[in-house]
Every structure is written in structure tokens, then in C-alpha cells.
């Protein structure tokens, strides 16, 4: 029996404003509990919300980035429920008239295939505070520093068909948000949080299966693991004759499993109604155009430009523009050395390989764009060979900082003196008469052996082009 998975993601993004959505309190992370909560955040009687306009600008810029309809008249609503970290007893959100309407996002998979994922909507809402259950001897502590921090909740259509697509979608979203600078996107600190709606159905069926919602997924890796685990759980359940019940499940990354949260017989009734303390937010085309004018070049546009301007492959361009920081890094390197294709190779292969191995972000790269640019320049001007360059690169990763000094002090300079190379070639030919005979007898493959021997003797420093040319010449004499 073959199964199809249907996934929709709800992503909460904390917007990087200096102050909260409806109050002047700071949004900085990590302050002493309740030091960033004013009379409004505490929901003292008589306090009223006043909208932070920066939030609107950020939401609209996101909407434009995903080609969404922008709500010219967005309305805030109250979502009512009781919880100690929700001081007013309701969360101000947007129900029927969100600021961002239908849009879409293009994702590229590892095999180069592309897919467009629908975005249902993105609405502005307040974050809740935090409940702290330790250190209070059977009681709970409440920290309201986070209460009222602006969130953009981005809801996708159920267009994702497997965990890898979900990760690609999430990464693309992450990238756009960082390009726009509207959030730090830090998943481990909760600046970007993901809930996944997952269901399975037999291939060919048109109706969706019953879905579960997985909460508390706080890294890209866990998104994939949590979804895969849940998909398998649902398939096993159905194949064993059971049925999936609609519920909220919590992902436990320690045990790599999802488990049912306190299941409720009836769905929560949030009793939404329009927030009477706030007027509808009305914007016009001039406002939207003004926001558009301040937006940076976005990943898709940058990707096409890289293909056109630098002659890169679609795949390389896509990898390089997957984050603003990486694209910036690449362009700095390319500008410095003047060879975009070579720069693209070094960044996507050597640098990314290194970063992946050390689990680092590009911002934390031990090799700076200037260093890499200089290194490539030395290949271009024949100071070193590409192969030797790898040695220099390694030295850079180990903390040495000056490319030219590394080349100098280790004697890595390429041998380009024709006389020296000719001597090298003569030596190799003289030392390997058997192989010379084989080569002359028509066994072309032996040629590589000569190159290898020559490189070995020169410790890799012989200029490969010159070496090749001279070898061929001498062997055919």
C-alpha cells in the first residue's frame, strides 16, 4: 500500500521591533523576568493597546515578498482564553481581515526540482508570556517579558507532500525573513516557531485524512524528524486498523517521538470578536509602494541575477542565495577576485563543506570573504595551484590569517619556471622507463601516473598546465 503525506505549516515569527506590538516595553531577549512589562503588558485595569506602526511595515514587506494580497483594511480581533501567561485573558490577533492575504513561495529541492507552495495568510498577533514551572515549590512563575511581542503567523496551504519539502519551505521562509530583516529568525530562542499539520491518505485519494497538529518544533532538523515520525505513526495506526484522531501532539526531541497533549473532547471555542479598543488599520497604495521601495533584493530575484550576471548554474545560484548572508559573502569574494564561477565553487564546495562539518552559520565562518577572495586571486595569478590552494584554505580555517604569508612561509609558491619543470619532467621520464614504454605502446592512461610522480616530487607546486604540456611534448619525442 502506498501512502501520500499532506502537510501544512503554521510558522510564528517574532518581528524584530524595538518595542512591543501594543505597548512601549522593550522586546529584548533574556532580561530579568518581568522587567520588560509595563502597565499594559500586565493588563492593569484601564490600560489600552496602541499599535506599533513598525509592525505593520514589517508585515506588509513580508506580504510583498511572497506576492501576497495586502489587506488594505486589516482588523484586529480578540481571541479569548484563560491562561496565566496571557494577562488580558485574550490575545489580540487578526481573524477575518489579516494584513497579509493569499501569496506563494517557490522552493527548490536538492534534486533541482521546483515547487510553488501556497501561503494562505499571515496575520499579526501578540505573543504570550512564559510560564515557569521549576524553582517555585509546586507553584508556577510567570514571566511577562515576552507578552505582547509582535508575531507574524504565516499559514501555508496543505501543499507540502513530505518532510523534506516542509524543511525546504521553512528554510525559504527563514531566508526571506532574514533578507527582509524583520526577524532574527533564531529558532532555538523561539524567534521562529513551527507547528505542523500532518495527515496521510492512500495514493490517489482526493479527500484529506484526519490531521494532527504537532507543536513545539524548534529546529529545521526536528521539523523533518517530527514529521517523519508522525507520518509513520499515522500509517502504522491505520494499517493496524485504527484511525487517526484530530489532536494536538507535542514533539519530544530527546525521545524523537510525538505524544498527545492533554486531549480535549471538544475543540476550544475562542469566541473571537472584533477588538473594540483598536480601529481597523487602513492603508493605501502609496503606503504599500513606500514599503516596497525600502525592500532589499529578495532571494528569487537575486538568484536570477546571479545566473544572468555571473553565468552561474541555477543550482549554484539557488544555494548561494538561500541566505542573505551567504549571497553577500559570495558577492564580496567574487568582486575581490574577479572570477564568479571559481568563487561560487569555493563557496558552495569548500566553504559550505567546512561550515557543515563544524556546524557553523556563514556569519561565524572562520574564513572571511577577504581571505577567500585573496586566495582565489592567487590561483588566478598563478601564484599557487588550485590544489595547493586547498592547503592554504585549511591553514586559514586553523586560524592563520594572511594568505600571502601562508604561501610564503610554507613555500607553497607554484613553480612556473620552465627550466625547473623541464628538469622535473626529464627526471620522471628517466626514472620510469617501463611506464614510458607502456605509454608509447598506446596506454594513454599512464599519463596520469607521470603527472602524479611529478607533483609528488615538486610537493604539488609545479604549475599543472605547464607540467602537462611539457610531459606530453617530451613523451612524444
Amino acid at each position, binding site marked *: 500500500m502506498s501512502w501520500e503525506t499532506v502537510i501544512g505549516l503554521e510558522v510564528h515569527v517574532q518581528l524584530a521591533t524595538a518595542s512591543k506590538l501594543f505597548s512601549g516595553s522593550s522586546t529584548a531577549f533574556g532580561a530579568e523576568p518581568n522587567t520588560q512589562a509595563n*502597565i499594559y503588558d*500586565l*493588563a*492593569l*485595569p*484601564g*490600560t*489600552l*493597546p*496602541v*499599535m506599533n506602526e513598525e509592525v505593520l511595515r514589517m508585515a506588509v514587506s513580508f506580504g510583498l515578498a511572497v506576492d501576497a494580497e495586502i489587506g488594505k483594511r486589516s482588523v484586529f480581533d*480578540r481571541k*479569548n482564553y*484563560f491562561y*496565566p501567561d496571557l*494577562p*488580558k*485573558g*485574550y490575545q489580540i490577533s487578526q481573524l477575518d481581515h489579516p494584513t497579509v492575504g493569499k501569496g506563494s513561495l517557490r522552493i527548490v529541492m536538492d534534486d533541482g526540482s521546483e515547487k510553488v507552495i501556497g501561503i494562505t495568510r499571515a496575520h499579526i498577533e501578540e505573543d504570550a508570556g512564559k510560564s515557569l514551572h521549576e524553582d517555585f515549590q509546586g507553584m*508556577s512563575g*510567570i514571566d511577562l517579558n515576552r507578552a505582547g511581542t509582535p508575531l507574524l503567523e504565516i499559514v501555508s496551504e496543505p501543499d507540502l507532500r513530505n518532510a523534506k519539502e516542509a524543511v525546504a519551505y521553512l528554510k525559504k521562509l527563514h531566508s526571506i525573513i532574514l533578507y527582509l530583516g524583520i526577524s532574527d529568525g533564531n529558532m532555538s530562542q523561539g524567534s521562529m516557531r513551527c507547528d505542523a499539520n500532518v495527515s496521510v491518505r492512500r495514493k490517489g485519494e482526493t479527500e484529506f485524512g484526519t490531521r494532527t497538529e504537532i507543536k513545539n518544533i524548534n529546529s529545521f532538523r526536528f521539523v523533518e524528524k517530527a514529521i517523519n515520525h508522525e507520518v509513520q505513526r499515522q500509517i502504522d495506526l491505520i494499517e493496524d486498523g485504527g484511525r487517526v484522531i484530530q489532536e494536538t501532539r507535542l514533539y519530544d526531541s530527546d525521545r524523537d517521538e510525538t505524544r498527545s497533549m492533554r486531549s480535549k473532547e471538544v475543540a476550544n*471555542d475562542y*469566541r*473571537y*470578536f472584533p477588538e*473594540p*479598543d*483598536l*480601529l481597523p488599520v487602513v492603508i493605501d497604495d502609496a503606503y504599500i509602494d513606500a514599503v516596497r521601495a525600502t525592500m532589499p533584493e529578495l532571494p528569487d530575484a537575486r538568484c536570477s541575477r546571479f545566473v544572468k550576471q555571473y553565468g552561474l548554474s541555477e543550482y549554484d545560484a539557488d544555494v548561494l542565495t538561500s541566505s542573505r548572508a551567504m549571497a553577500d559573502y559570495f558577492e564580496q569574494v567574487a568582486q575581490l577576485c574577479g572570477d564568479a564561477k571559481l568563487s561560487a565553487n569555493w563557496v558552495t564546495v569548500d566553504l559550505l563543506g567546512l561550515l557543515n562539518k563544524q556546524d557553523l552559520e556563514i556569519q561565524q565562518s572562520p574564513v572571511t570573504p577577504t581571505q577567500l577572495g585573496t586566495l582565489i586571486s592567487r590561483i588566478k595569478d598563478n601564484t599557487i595551484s588550485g590544489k595547493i590552494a586547498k592547503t592554504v584554505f585549511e591553514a586559514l580555517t586553523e586560524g592563520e590569517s594572511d594568505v600571502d604569508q601562508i604561501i610564503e612561509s610554507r613555500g607553497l609558491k607554484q613553480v612556473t619556471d620552465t627550466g625547473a619543470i623541464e628538469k622535473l619532467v626529464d627526471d620522471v621520464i628517466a626514472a620510469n622507463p617501463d611506464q614510458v614504454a607502456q605509454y608509447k605502446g598506446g596506454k594513454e592512461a599512464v599519463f596520469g601516473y607521470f603527472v602524479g610522480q611529478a607533483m609528488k616530487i615538486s610537493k604539488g607546486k609545479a604549475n599543472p598546465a605547464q607540467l602537462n604540456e611539457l610531459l606530453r611534448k617530451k613523451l612524444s619525442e
Partner: protein
Amino acid sequence: MLSKTVAELSAALDRKDVSSVELTQAYLDRIEKLNPDLNAYITVCKEQALKQAAEADKQRAAGNGTPFTGIPIAHKDIFCTRDVLTTCGSRMLHNFVSPYDASVVERLQQAGAVTLGKTNMDEFAMGSSNETSYYGPVRNPWDSSRVPGGSSGGSAAAVAADMCAIATGTDTGGSIRQPASFCGITGLKPTYGRVSRFGMIAFASSLDQAGPLSKSAEDAALMMNAIAGLDSRDSTSLDHPAEDFTAHLQQSLKGLRIGLPRDHFTADLNPAVQTILQDAIKVLESLGASVTEVDLPHNHLSVPAYYVVAPAEASANLSRYDGVRFGHRAENPVNLEDLYKRSRSEGFGDEVKRRIMVGTYALSAGYYDAYYKKAQKIRRLIKQDFDEAFKSVDVILGPTSPHTAFKLGEKNADPVTMYLEDIYTIAVNLAGIPGMSLPAGMLQGLPIGMQLVGPAFSEARLLNVAHQFQLNTDWHQRRPEVK
């Protein structure tokens, strides 16, 4: 001296006939004497008031006075006052001391007013008789067996009994106008958004509006000058050009077009009240006004629509009272649910609980369209009725209340009977337009008010009509004999 208007007291202070300290002390003495019986005040700020009075005397002497400098006033206990208890008439807030001042409080303080104290009110402004207060009912100064009206009953009684010069109130469905009518004073509910709601404890956010309870229309205009205007801390506050509400008081009423709502003057209205209103209309006609009938075809739907919208908003507004951060907290809760349940059960009175339940029900899945949405539609129709009527008339005149003040306990048995008290006032809140009540006559020793309603931002016109009426009648000068 204590029965004088703000305008008169201000002149007396200027002439140094009396100092603010003397005046304040005199009011404090009267409060001390009368409050045990009338229960108009929940909190009296004796020391603070005398300190403010001394400062005000200095300001006036230095020539820095406003009409309010040194005038002893009272605030309804719904306005947050820094360092002074703010209870909203509820056990829930019996221990709540606000760390900040409401916009209305701040503005009157800046104008130099002296705060005598905080007045009693129906719990969370939910009531029409001031009987739902946790601090006990207020008694009507005209007859202590009767109610003063509500919810601003304490403010109305305090003004009528000369326990302050003027007081603030709030009006969500008639809570300034009906007690003004019952106590024989003047009360104005401004256009929604004209006075900031910042620091005013919310009952129904889209209807609540602060305004004055005063001894004359002129005083109401003076207070409006102090409290009205845009406030960036209230997003629903309106950016309307500042105006001097006293500027048009002297304007002639020649050409004034008065509309009488057909459905207000029916057999349902007490005939004696009708006669009183007819007499008042004659006075206005003698001043040059003309009278026609107008239709408000959806007015009869205002009470049911109101009792969906207001409780719905209240059910959410009152969710913050959960015993977690401030206010009443149940002792030794065994868990979170117990903390919520007992804190709220103990902290709220019956009427508040009733409205929270009604509001919660009206917003519930499956009922939202039938109740909340429909009520909002009715609200639009009611507003359209007024818009239509104001095409042919300048003000609408009618009764404020169907009758004079009723006896304590008389209407407690059936909530709906109590809700119908506001039959003439509620539509004004739903439409967001200004309305005022001013004394128009006496019936069996009890005052009767008439209501004037105008289009949005017509406060100055309403005050003009009321002032001209008061120049030609003395109903507003009648004072109860309080023992």
C-alpha cells in the same frame, strides 16, 4: 457656598471670598456628615485634597489659575487614580491601588482641580440603581429610601447633595444621564471618542464614554474644556479640533429645530412626565425653537441589541481579573482552575456574573451570528435612524427616564425590568452620539430630567440649548433638604 456652581466658585476664589483650602475643608466636613447615610463616596482623600487645595490657592494667587484651580471635585471610582484606591465598586478590586492616573484624572489635576475622593458606583458600571456596588447602595439625597440611579449614582448623589462642586462619571448605556435625572442635576455623555478612555476601567469598550455630572450646563461645558481632546494612549480617541465648549452658551435659540421621537411620547410614558416635558418644550419654543416629530424606527431594538454587545465586550474586558496579578485572589488555591474559579466567584457580584455569562454565550460558536452579529446590524440601523432624523432637526428631545427615582429594592427581582430603565438612553450610546440630561421639573418631590440628543460633535450646541433653558428655569437650582 457649597451649592454654588463651578463658575460661581471660581469667581469667588478669584475674589478671595473664600480660599480653596476653606472650600475643600467645608466639602470634607459635609461629606463626613452626609456620607454615612448617602454612601456616595467609597474613598475620601482628605489629606491629599487639602494639600492640592493649598497648592491651588498659591497658583490662583500667582495668576496661574484655570476655572478649575482649587475647585473640589469627585471622581467616579472607575477612573484610575495613582496611589488612591480604585475599586470600580467591586470586591474584585477592593485592594487595587493604581500606579497611574487616568487621562481624565490627569487633565483635571493639570487644570488645578482638588480631588475630594472616589464615588460609589454599580459594580463595574453594571446597573441602573447603584445597588450592585460591593460597597453598598447609594441613597438618593431627595429621598433616602430611593435609589440615585446608576451606574454613576455616587457622583450624581454627591453633586446633588453638595458633597462636591462637580463630578466625573461614565456612561455606557445611560449611566451619566439617568442618575442625573434621578438626582436633579445636569449630566453629559459626549460623542464616543471625544474623551479619552485611558485609565477608565472598561465595561463595554465601544460604548463607554466619560463625562461630567454638574449643577449646570455651564459647569458641564467647563469640565468638557478640561477633559475632551485627542489622547495618543487611546486609539479610539478622536482627532477633532479643540473647541471652547462655553463659547456658544449665550447663543440664541431662534431657529433651533427640536425633534420629538414619536415612540418616546406614547401611552407607555408616565403622563405626569409627559406634562413636565411639554412644559419644558413650551419654554424652548418661547425662546425661538420650533418643534416637529421624528421617527426612530429601530429604537425599540436598542435594549436587546445593547444587552448583547455590552455583555459580549464585558465578558472579554473582565477576563483580566483572574487573581494572578492584582485584585482579589482566592486563598490557598489547590490548582490553577481553582484559583480562577474561586477568585472570580468571590470577587464578582451577581449582576457582573450574569453579564459575563450572557456575553460569553452571545460570542460562543454557533450563537455569534444570531446574537453578536445581528446586534451589530441593529446598531448600524439605529445610527442610520439618528442620521436621518438629524437631517431635519438640530436636537432630539425626550425623557431621560420613564419615571422618577424608584425605591431601593423595587426593581431588583427581575433584571429585565432593570434593563428597561435605560430604554431612552441606550440608543445614544449605540450610535456613538452625544446626549445630556438636565432637570426639567419635579414630580411628588422628586426631580425629572429631560434628554437632549444631537449629532456627533454637537456637544457645544446641546450645552447651548441646556444653558438657555437653565437661564429661563430654576429646576437645576433646586436642592434636596438633606438631614
